[in-house]
């Protein structure tokens, strides 16, 4: 094959030819699948695309959508909600994920059954998960109210999704529950890579458990935690199913986040151009975060 064809110049040309051969199919597939839709979305955001004429009309309006974005109260509201939601979710997932990882790394938590359990929330289809929690949270016959009442924690039914801020927090509980497993597994794997000898040496030097954690565990987890944070942020920005099923953005737009707003504008109001501009904003945010991700990883050179 290639070996025979490049017999004489093997050591110089071949790696590069091979590299192109290896890379090209993936690049082509991704370009075909995404480059065109992305360029289309950027172009669409520069138009006032609508269906009023019996087809997708795209009158050019330049940056008008983006300037409207900046002045739109609904966008400001969504940005605030998104900021709160993302920060709390990433913080919550990292905290819970780390705790779970530490727990399962402990001798008592080593049973592999725990790890399988951990995967359950990740495995369940988001659609079913959303409906499940909708019924759990139901103000009248939801099982959450039933349990809390029987435990005496509350006297009467709480309308969990009835207050804007409370609803947002209830959504956070569900999403954190669903997102923690993957991060926990990530951190658990990182924990298992830390050499035991370090802990033994620290113990022999008289270090307490907290000191071991602070000076051995945490520094070793610096990069995995950063990676987890950025991946989770990118995914938090795409939250949709939960809001669509549980609150539809309500009450009073209290749970409208940027991704949901983009959906509402595009598919409910059929303002494809404006919706595209909102979606592009989301993408831009994720991209900037990705660049941050790569910067963080740079210092880790080859072994």
């Amino acid at each position, binding site marked *: 094959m290639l070996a025979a064809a490049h017999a004489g110049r093997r050591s110089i040309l071949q790696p590069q030819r091979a590299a192109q051969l290896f890379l090209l199919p993936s690049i082509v597939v991704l370009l075909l699948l995404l480059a065109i839709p992305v360029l289309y979305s950027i172009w669409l955001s520069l138009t006032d695309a609508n269906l009023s004429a019996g087809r997708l009309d795209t009158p050019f309006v330049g940056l008008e959508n983006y300037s409207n974005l900046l002045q739109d109260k609904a966008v400001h509201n969504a940005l605030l909600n998104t900021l709160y939601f993302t920060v709390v979710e990433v913080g919550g997932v990292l905290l819970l994920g780390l705790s779970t990882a530490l727990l399962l790394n402990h001798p008592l938590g080593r049973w592999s059954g725990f790890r*399988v359990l951990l995967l359950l929330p990740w495995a369940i289809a988001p659609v079913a998960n959303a409906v499940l929690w909708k019924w759990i949270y139901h103000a009248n016959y939801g099982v959450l109210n039933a349990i809390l009442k029987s435990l005496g924690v509350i006297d009467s039914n709480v309308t969990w999704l009835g207050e804007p801020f409370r609803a947002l927090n209830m959504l956070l509980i569900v999403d954190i529950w669903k997102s923690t497993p993957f991060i926990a597994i990530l951190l658990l794997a990182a924990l298992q890579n830390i050499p035991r000898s370090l802990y033994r040496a620290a113990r022999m030097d008289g270090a307490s458990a907290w000191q071991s954690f602070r000076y051995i565990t945490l520094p070793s987890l610096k990069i995995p935690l950063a990676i987890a944070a950025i991946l989770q942020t990118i995914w938090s920005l795409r939250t949709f199913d939960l809001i669509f099923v549980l609150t539809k953005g309500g009450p009073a737009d209290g749970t409208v986040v940027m991704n949901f707003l983009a959906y509402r504008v595009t598919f409910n109001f059929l303002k494809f151009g404006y919706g595209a501009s909102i979606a592009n904003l989301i993408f831009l945010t994720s991209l900037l975060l990705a660049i941050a991700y790569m910067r963080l990883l740079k210092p880790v050179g080859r072994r």
Partner: protein
Amino acid sequence: MVLALALFVLLTMAPFVWLLLSSFLEQKALISTPPDLSLASFTLANYREVISSAAQLAKGIRNSLIISGFTTCLALLLGAPAAYALARLNVKNKDLLLLLILAAQMFPAIVIVIPLFIAASKLGLIDTRTNLILVYLSFNLPVVIWVLRGFFYSLPSGLERAARIDGATTIQTFRWIILPISLPPLFAAASFAFIEAWNEFFLALIMTRQNAQTVPLVISSFAGQYQTIFGQMMAAAAISIAPIMLLTFLLRTTILRGFADGLLKG
């Protein structure tokens, strides 16, 4: 410590216990306050209804298995060599490519759905499994590349040199030396891709009609506008989790090892 573990199990499992319980309960019992857990309310009717042909769950599972399976295979086929090239071979603009690949999976589906729909429609691919297999590559391929790249990057650098001394070409090195020792991260990347494809909803909704329905669509069909039989939906969800749980159970240790090396070593 035992308390912490117990809490962990409780918090993880509690919603699931409710999911399973509800799948065996009549609607009447579920809307009672408190939910009526007396023996009389338990029924197999939900499962019977879901399994019967009207519910199309079997077709959905079959479609999902085929779609998720093949998109994962394709992602590996295309992604493993690409990851290797980006990790070990001399490639120009490596960082830019890596960034673009990561960026590819950041798109909200609403951004890409209309142009993809138009293209698929013109190619006659609407409502085929092939269509979803290809479209899902858009978010599977980047993840596979990133996970595998991290792993390949952390392999000892002497491997290629030793292979070249023995007279192997790059392709041969990749196929006979690198791949066989990469089983854990290959399976890890594959599992991530499989589960994400299995659970994907929005693109499947827009791109399919009656033939290529996937499991999430079948599950969502139990939520009507005027009426939702909760027990039936939970039964469908319970059945559809089974293949994934089986998969993750069988591969739990390899997944764990794979992720450690894949995402962390950069």
